[in-house]
């Protein structure tokens, strides 16, 4: 038997395959296609203190080998998530991570405090990188000092492992990673979407009502792999890699680059069974390559 388990800053995943926030709802949708217990972890939709309606429509645009979204954190608020969504998930043997977004430092702190008291949360992922909300959002993740402050604050509010989710829309992502590590993050996840835009030439308007949106999917994979590699060199905490993963081959690029776990985002839309197929593919690949423990390939890139 190959060993697939990894420890992400205190979150024990039985295998290193997760699903990315905002692409997997609260899990119920994909439970129609396979047993969620087959996954290592599951990150639920970005959660805010109060319910949010999100951005106007359209929110989705397709682009070459990818897509833009400007969903903008439509969610029912943290209390509803705790009461109605998480209990359902608890029957699955899968680590549940709640993705957290705030307008202000205080709001991040408040949400994390409530999650700390809740049942069925294995960790929090602090989204300091959402390109789709006007106030706050990405700006928390583009300045190392602010990024560090956010993480330091939430780190003090919970015993749960804290993952900082990084924005790719920066000059030097390693610098931000080091800042959140200094702030006490137990892990980093990256990349969030890359800010992009598509134009409907017939209507001469942006395709997205929000004008700009976040680019995800295979198109951004080379950017994501590069950033995971840079960050893995820069910090000692584990890295969760994502950005354009649709196949086990994609996932392996991230492991070799230094990711201790990976997440499937838009790939779920391309193929609803993508995440579970990657788990199976990983097991098969390790066997074929006679590698006993997934950890032997993490960061095993030869230069």
């Amino acid at each position: 038997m190959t060993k697939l388990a990894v420890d992400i800053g205190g979150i024990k995943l039985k295998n290193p395959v997760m699903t990315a926030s905002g692409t997997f709802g609260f899990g119920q949708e994909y439970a129609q296609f396979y047993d969620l217990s087959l996954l290592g972890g599951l990150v639920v939709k970005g959660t805010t203190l109060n319910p949010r309606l999100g951005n106007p429509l359209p929110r989705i645009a397709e682009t070459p080998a990818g897509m833009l979204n400007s969903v903008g954190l439509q969610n029912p608020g943290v209390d509803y998530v705790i009461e109605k969504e998480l209990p359902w998930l608890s029957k699955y043997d899968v680590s549940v991570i709640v993705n957290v977004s705030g307008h202000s430092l205080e709001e991040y702190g408040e949400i994390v405090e409530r999650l700390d008291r809740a049942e069925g949360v294995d960790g929090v992922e602090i989204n300091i990188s959402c390109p789709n909300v006007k106030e706050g959002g990405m700006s928390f993740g583009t300045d190392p000092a602010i990024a560090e402050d956010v993480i330091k604050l939430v780190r003090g509010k919970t015993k749960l492992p804290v993952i900082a989710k990084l924005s790719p829309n920066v000059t030097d992502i390693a610098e931000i990673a080091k800042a959140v590590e200094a702030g006490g993050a137990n892990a980093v996840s990256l990349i969030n979407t890359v800010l992009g835009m598509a134009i409907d030439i017939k209507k001469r308007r942006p395709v997205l009502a929000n004008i700009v949106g976040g680019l995800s999917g295979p198109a951004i994979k080379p950017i994501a792999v590069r950033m995971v590699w840079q960050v893995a060199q820069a910090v000692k905490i584990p890295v969760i890699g994502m950005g354009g993963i649709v196949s086990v081959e994609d996932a392996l690029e991230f492991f070799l680059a230094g990711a201790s776990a990976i997440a499937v985002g838009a790939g779920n839309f391309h193929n609803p069974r993508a995440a579970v197929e990657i788990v199976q593919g990983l097991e098969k690949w390790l066997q074929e390559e006679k590698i006993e423990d997934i950890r032997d390939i993490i960061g095993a890139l030869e230069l």
Partner: protein
Amino acid sequence: MVQAITGKVLSNELVAPDFYKLDVFVGSMAEEIKPGQFVMVKVASGLEPFLRRPISINSVNIKERNLSLIYQVIGKGTKLMTNIKRDQNLEIMGPLGQGFTWKGTDKTAVLVGGGCGIAPLVALAQELKANDKDVYVLLGAQTKDRLICEREFNKVGAKVQVATDDGSWGFHGFVTELLERLLAQVKVDQLYCCGPLPMTKIVTRIAEKNSLPCQVSLEERMGCGIGACIGCVCKTQDHHGKIDYKKVCTDGPVFDSREVVFDD
């Protein structure tokens, strides 16, 4: 239950300029389909295009376990769909969404369809007739040759009226005018509407004016098709006027017209 399966293509043929009919063997998925539901189709293998395309179910053959889709060639994805060949595998996910509903007490139903929105009304007309309703079908198209499914509605015994923009077939004008005339003559219990947004808005207004319940099928750009990405919402309000964003893919695509807030 929603399934993500690999279906087998039975045929893919031009049925009107820019309209194709795609028949696919889908196995047990065929047993669960309600009129108004849709599927997400992976139009080509590989990464391009990245997203699946939502297409309504036009009709189902439960015995043969296959379903028909009718799609209009619009852009990249539907253009690629025209390359789909008989016997080819097709990745298809469904049935998705909430279909049309009817009440036992309904006697007379009017179905208003325009463009490719006519397609899902065929399955609805079949079901309504199977449930002994009196079914009127009002169809709008640009020209005679771009009208789809007229024969299918006739076959199930619906009373069909057609309006074309250029008068090349049936009434010369908008299908919504046919609706207003019909409502002046016949007592109707339920309206159904599927077509371009401007048409849907007018039908909604006519329904309101006549205090008739109306179910409208909406379209929105989709990421996942199953409620996970919250990309496909439409603005709604409840009785108290409370605004919400509901998902077209799982709360819809069929909505009560009174619930929908049409922004202009």
